[in-house]
Structure formats: structure tokens, C-alpha cells
């Protein structure tokens, strides 16, 4: 018991941070709430560093302290800090400002639970925890659009989560245990295993906005405040994808899950980029692009039991994705929601422009930026797992993605009537941090390959 608690100290710290932020909000001190939140998460990250290299489970195998879950903390906690700084601009001065920070942390806690899930119940609870907090965050502005986004998000989430739970009930029936680690022992009832797997893919796929469970994503992103959209595209998504990794690690290969993943990957990448090509709203564009990026994660996930490169590649790409996507959203927050707002950005505000170019090129996967290293490793893992054709498809999609992102980049160089909004200092801070992260992850990838 004591050992178990010592191993989940970061999670406890995150929980206490959320509680602290909530208490500060109850005392009507949103600034203090933000400060507590930031400090708490930074401390949580620091506490996690101590655990690096641990590979064990706690609470009878139901929660895993392994590379994935540790890196999930190291990636998601800083990402949450950045989102909170972005959110500060969106919600400053509104009623219940501190609640937003607290909800963000609770949701991140859910993502962490997902990332370390060693038990089907943790899958359910993690999905629930991230989901509930994010519905509220999306609906936060209380406008027509926000509530519509929240409503669609909620309906989609509750239906898919229910499907997942229903499928998981078959897994319990098949293995007599809710531990994921007991799944390989199943040799009877293959149908139950497949049903459960499909259901898990539905439930986690919705959270990771994989095609065809992505419908909510563009609407929710568009209706929500930008900072929340940025958050949705990073934290719950990475949590869900890590959870998916935890699940398939233990799945017997005969179920053919790798092929399913490959199919989903192709669908997500291709559909995501094709749909992004026709968007004029930058948020929707980024939403579809994030759908496509989820597809890239799957390249690593399907290789997870057959290639040693897979785990490091997923982690690396997650870190890269968090940095570059948050950065792109931050620039969008500082610029505007329409593609036209970006015309002339490069001339009017060159630093923002350069940063945006770097983020987008990183999303395409141009070396030596973070996105490249991540994708490179993912392709390596895929080829290693005998899915060369998939790597080829992914590469073709990367080219397609170029077309998508160039739609933002090209007008930036044009001399245009760029919106000359004064940059919020927090936006600048987030952009700079994401920018440095994008470069550092690209050059210092070694650090992520433990």
C-alpha cells in the first residue's frame, strides 16, 4: 500500500492541485487558482522525473507505472500548463475562471489514468473523467455555439463510451478478470475478445478522434474557446492513444487487431487531410489535421508488440505533437479564426509568422523539427512490423498534409491586410515555449528514447 502510494505520487499531486485550484476559486481568487495550478503541475512533472525507468504496476496490476504512463505525465502536465496560460486569455475576468483551471487539471488526471490503465475499469473511469470535465469546458462560454458543440460532443461521447463498456463486459466474461494483463490467457470465446476489442476501439477512438468516430471533433473544436480546442486536440487524445497502446500490448495477435489499426490509420490520415483541404476556418482545419495526426499514432500502436521502436516512437511523436499542435493553436489564438486573418502575418508580425511556419512544417514532418523525428520513428516501427505498405501510405499522406498546411503558410508571406491585433503576452509566452519545445524535441530526441 505504502509502496503503491509512493509510486502514484505524481497523480496525487495532480489531484491535490486540482483541489487547490478549486478551493482558490471558491474563495473568488482566480489568479491564485492559476498560480496554484501551474506550480502544482510543474511540481507533478518534477516528481515524475524521479520515476523515470520504473516499470511496474500498482494496486494489484490495475494501474501501470511504465514508460508510457510516466511519459504521459511528462508530456501532458506541461501541455496542460500551456493550455491554462492560453485559457487565461480566453476566460480572464469571467465568472468561474478558476473552475476552468480546475477542470483542465481534472481532465488531465483522467488522461493520465487512461495512459496508465492496466484494467478495463480504469479505461472506463479515465474516459469518464476526461470526458465530463471537457464537456463542461466546451460549454463554458454558454453561447449558442458553445452549447451546441458541447451537446454534440456529449451525445457522441456518451454513446461511444456506452458501447465501450458493453464490449468490455464481454472481456470480463471471457477472462474472468478486468485486468488487461489477463487478456492473453483467453483461448476460448474469440468472438467475445473481438467484440470487446471493437468496442474499445470505438470508445477510445472517439476520444482520439479517429475516423470514423471523429464527427464531434471539428464541431466541438469550433464551438469551444480556442484554448479548450487546443486542449482537446492534445491531452485527451494522447491519453486515449496511450490507453489504446496499453490495451493492444496485451491482446493476442491472432485477433488480427493490427490490421484493424492499419485500416483505421489509413482512414484517419487520408480523410483527415482531405477534409482539412477544404476548410476555411483555421480551427476546423486544425481539427481535421489533428484527426489525421491521430492516424499517425496508430502506425506506432499497431507495431507495439512486434517492434522495439514502437513505444519510443509513440512517446516521441506524442511529445512532438503536443508541442507543435499547441503552438499552432496558440498562434491561431493570437491571430484569428479565419484563413484570411493569416494573410500577411509574416510581414506584420514576423515572429508569430516564423513560429507558425515552424509549427506547420513540423506537423508535415520536415526535418529537423520535432514532427519529423516522431514520424520518422513511427515509419521505422511500421516497416519493422512488416507494414511497409502502410508506411508508404503514411508518406503519401504527409505530402497531402503539405498541401493542407501550405494553405496557411502561403498567404502569410503575401502582403496583406493582416489583423494588427496586439499580441496578448500569454499567447506570446505559449508560442515561445511551444516553439522551443518543437526545436528541442527535434534535436534532442535522444532524451525521449528511454
Amino acid at each position, binding site marked *: 500500500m505504502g509502496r503503491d502510494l509512493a509510486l502514484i505520487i505524481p497523480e496525487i499531486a495532480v489531484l491535490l492541485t486540482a483541489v487547490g485550484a478549486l478551493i482558490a476559486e471558491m474563495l473568488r481568487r482566480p489568479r491564485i487558482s492559476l498560480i496554484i495550478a501551474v506550480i502544482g503541475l510543474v511540481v507533478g512533472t518534477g516528481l515524475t522525473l524521479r520515476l523515470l525507468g520504473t516499470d511496474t504496476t500498482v494496486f494489484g496490476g490495475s494501474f501501470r507505472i511504465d514508460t508510457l504512463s510516466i511519459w504521459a505525465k511528462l508530456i501532458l502536465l506541461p501541455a496542460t500548463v500551456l493550455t491554462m496560460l492560453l485559457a487565461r486569455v480566453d476566460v480572464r475576468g469571467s465568472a468561474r475562471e478558476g473552475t476552468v483551471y480546475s477542470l483542465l487539471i481534472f481532465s488531465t488526471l483522467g488522461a493520465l489514468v487512461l495512459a496508465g490503465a492496466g484494467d478495463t475499469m480504469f479505461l472506463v473511469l479515465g474516459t469518464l473523467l476526461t470526458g465530463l470535465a471537457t464537456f463542461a469546458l466546451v460549454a463554458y462560454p454558454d453561447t449558442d455555439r458553445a452549447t451546441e458543440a458541447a451537446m454534440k460532443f456529449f451525445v457522441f461521447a456518451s454513446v461511444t463510451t456506452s458501447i465501450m463498456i458493453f464490449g468490455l463486459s464481454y472481456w470480463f466474461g471471457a477472462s474472468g478478470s478486468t485486468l488487461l494483463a489477463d487478456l492473453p490467457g483467453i483461448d476460448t470465446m474469440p468472438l467475445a475478445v473481438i467484440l470487446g476489442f471493437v468496442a474499445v476501439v470505438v470508445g477510445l477512438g472517439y476520444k482520439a478522434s479517429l475516423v470514423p468516430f471523429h464527427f464531434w471533433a471539428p464541431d466541438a473544436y469550433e464551438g469551444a474557446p480556442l484554448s479548450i480546442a487546443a486542449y482537446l486536440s492534445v491531452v485527451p487524445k494522447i491519453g486515449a492513444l496511450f490507453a489504446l497502446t496499453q490495451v493492444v500490448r496485451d491482446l493476442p495477435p491472432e485477433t488480427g487487431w493490427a490490421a484493424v489499426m492499419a485500416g483505421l490509420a489509413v482512414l484517419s490520415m487520408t480523410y483527415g487531410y482531405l477534409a482539412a483541404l477544404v476548410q476555411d476556418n483555421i480551427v476546423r482545419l486544425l481539427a481535421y489535421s489533428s484527426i489525421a495526426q491521430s492516424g499517425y499514432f496508430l502506425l506506432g500502436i499497431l507495431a507495439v508488440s512486434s517492434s522495439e521502436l514502437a513505444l519510443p516512437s509513440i512517446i516521441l511523436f506524442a511529445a512532438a505533437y503536443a508541442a507543435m499542435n499547441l503552438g499552432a493553436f496558440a498562434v491561431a489564438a493570437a491571430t484569428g479564426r479565419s484563413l484570411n486573418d493569416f494573410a500577411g502575418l509574416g510581414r506584420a508580425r514576423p515572429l508569430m509568422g516564423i513560429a507558425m511556419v515552424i509549427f506547420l512544417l513540423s506537423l508535415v514532418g520536415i526535418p*529537423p523539427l520535432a514532427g519529423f523525428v516522431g514520424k520518422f520513428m513511427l*515509419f*521505422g516501427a511500421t516497416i519493422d512490423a512488416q507494414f511497409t505498405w502502410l*508506411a508508404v501510405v503514411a*508518406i503519401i499522406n504527409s*505530402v497531402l498534409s503539405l498541401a493542407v498546411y501550405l494553405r496557411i503558410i*502561403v498567404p502569410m508571406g503575401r502582403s496583406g491586410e493582416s489583423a494588427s491585433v496586439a499580441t496578448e503576452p500569454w499567447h506570446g509566452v505559449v508560442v515561445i515555449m511551444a516553439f522551443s519545445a518543437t526545436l528541442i524535441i527535434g534535436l534532442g530526441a*535522444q532524451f525521449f528514447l528511454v
Partner: protein
Amino acid sequence: MLPLVSLTLFLPLVGAVLILCLPKPTARTVHSIAIASAALTLVGALAMWLQGVSGDGFSQVEELVWMPAIGAAYRVGVDGISLPLVLLSAVLFLVSFIYTSSLRDRPRAYVALILLLETAAIGTFTALDGILFYVFFEVSLVSMYFMIAGWGHEDRQRAALMFFIYTLLGSLPLLLAILGLYLGSPDPTFDMRAWIANPPLEGAAAMWALIAMLITFAVKIPAIPLHTWLPAAHVQAPTVGSVILAGIMLKFGTYGLVRFALQMTPDALRDAGIVVLFFGVVSAIYGAFAALAQTDLKRLVAYTSINHMGYVIVGVAVAALTLDPSVRAVALDGAVLQMFSHGLVTGALFFLVGMIQERAHTREMGEFGGLLKTVPLLGWSFVLAAFASLGLPGLAHFPAEFQIFLATLGTTPIAVVVILGIAIIAGTFLKALRETFLGEPRDRWNKMPDLSPREILAVAPLLVLTVATGAAPSWVLDVIHRTTLALVL
């Protein structure tokens, strides 16, 4: 012992960072910093040249741990194939900065981009690690894209996009090939030396990897039929952009052909040698004919590049096909020297075309005439460069092409039809010279000023080197030959 290669490699980057960090520098400062760092880079390259190569494998290797977990590291070094190209890059970039020092339109970003490009170029030639190579390979693409998109001519956005998409699409197969080589090696590593020493792939895998590489390099070189981006990009690019594009970035393709296709999948290339040879011949002849049909000076020069690069492909293909090491050495000597010479000569030609365009705001040959009389210095420089380009003995291209033909004759005599290209190119240039520089001077161009000191400084080094290489090629060839002779395939 100074880490010469790394210093040379990152000096331009330091310059770029310096320029970006200065608060509101004047154009003059920007250009001075750029020229200074390029000059220092050239000094570094010369120092490397003096160090020389050992002939056996790579010399001056510098290594730094980067990602040991996956066997990637920062590894740089040179051999006889890359060293001349490093020198060429240093020279061409320096003269480019000199030429561009009159620019006043956002000089800071422009110069920084070119400096970045210089690092990328030298990095591509010196990288000894698969990932590192790919990184530099792609970075060059990005900076070139922004150069064309930001400072090109009328239709620059479209041309830049076409260039970018073409070459990025083209470079991704290389990524697959690199991954294949990595996963194929017994002890997974990205060390190119290991890949060269023990080609990791064989059979069908090697053939697939080779096909992937060939696609990439064919786009970059460019070879028929993947060449269509080149004229558009050249026409729309700023002068310096064209110079670097033709002078250096095309070499990425041919260099890659030698370094990757020939050295890492030798057996596969031997099997596919005839096909590659065929494409080389077709490229050379097609390029020549296409050049002949041009009326736009810049397009003309661009198409001659396709022709010259075709010879390089022929040389590499012959090197793969032949079984005789001495013939192979001759073929590779020719191919590498051709890269070097082409950089000098085409660089000079693009500069001169750029100067004409700046003065006349047109590049149509039909609108000129008798320029030799109005602007003699420019005219004679062009004549010299043109003669070099068409392969006149005593000038840079002659020794290179001669060796290629020699080796071809000894291996696959039929391919010597490629000599036809020389004749056509000669015709092309003679036609261009006649229309542009000979004849009666037109009144329109009477006021055209001759070369300024800045422009002389930009062109003269190239012409001097052209003559030097042509008259006494041994100073370059020695370096090249030392490596090609020791090459074991």
C-alpha cells in the same frame, strides 16, 4: 585539432542566428555579416581541402552522440566525392552573397535563409548519418521554398509550391529507403559508413530501396520524366536562388546517386544499371533538345542543366555496370568532376543571365542583339561561360565529360550516342550567342551599363576556377581519384 568540418558546417548558421538576433540591423550590416561568415566558411572549406582525404573511406570524421538508443549520431566527414562539392558550395555561396549585397527588400530574412541553405548544403555533402543526411536534405528544400516564394518573380507562389511539393514528394521515398537500410542492418544503425562497408539489404529489398532512392534523386537531379519543376522554379527564382538551385541543389541528387544508390545498394544498381543508363542518356539528349527550343535565356540555361546532369547519371550508371575497377574510377572521376564543373559554369551563367535581366527586365533572346558591343565585359564573360558549358577543351566541362565518354565507350559503347548531346548544346549556345550578343546593337540597350565591381567580384572567381579546372584538372581530380580508385563495390 579544430573540428574543421563542423566549424565549416555551422559557421553560416551562426551568421544567420546573429543576423536574426540583431535588433533592427541595417541592410549593410546584414550583408557584411553574411559575406564575412561565408568567407570564413570558405576558409574552413579550404582548410579542409588542405587536410585532404586519405582515399580509404572517409577522412576528417567527427562524431557526437545524438540518439544512441536508435543508433543515430551526429557524424560528419568527407571523402574525395564530397570534398570538391563542399568547396564548390563554399565558393558559390560566397559569390552569391557578394552578388546579392545590393538587395534592399527585406534583406535580413533573405540573407538568413541563404545562410541556412549554405549550412544545409554543406551538411548534405558531409553528413555520414542517414538521419542527419535526410535532415539537411529537407532543410535545404524549405529555405529554397521560402526564397522563391518571397523574392522570386511574377509567378513565384505557384513555382515555389510546385518546387516544394515535387521535391518533398520526391524525397519521402528516400526516407523509406533509409528506414529500410536501418532496419536491414544487422546491428541497427544509421551510420552511413557501416551501410557502405556492408550493404545491409539484398535481393528484392535492395531493389525496392534502390527504386525509392532513384525516385528521390531523379526528382532532385532532375532526370526525365521528373524534371518539370525545374524550368518553372528557375524562371521564377531570384538570381541567387537559381545559382544555388542549379549550382548546388541539383548536386544533392547526383551526390545521393553515388553515395546511396551506388555505394549502399551496389548489386541492385548493377542489375538496374541499364535502365538508369537509359534514363541518363535520354535526359542528356532531351535536355539538349529542349534547350535548343528555348527563347528565354534563363530557361535555356536551366535545360542545359538537365543535359549536364544526364551525363552524370550516365557516368554513375557506367560505374555500376563495369566490372573493371579502373574503368569505374574513370567514370566516377568524370561524374564527380562534372558535378563540380557544372556548379561553377552554371553558376556563372545564371549570374550573367540575372545581370542581363536586371538591366533589361526581359530574358527573351529575340529582344537583344549586339550586346557584346554595348556591354563587352558582360558579353565576353557570357561567351566564356557558354563555351565552358558546351564542353570546349581547356574549360571546366571538357575533362569531366571526356572521362565519362571514355568509360562509357569501354563498357556500353551504344550509350555513346549521348555525345549527340554535346553537339546540340553547342548549337544551342551558338544560337543564343548569335541572337543576344552578336549582330547590330539595338538602340534600346544603348544605355545599358557594363558590369559593376560588385558583379565582377561575383562572376570573376567562377570564371577563373572554370579555366583552372579546365586547363589543369588535376588539382581536383587528384582528390576525387584517390577515393574513386579505392572504391570497393
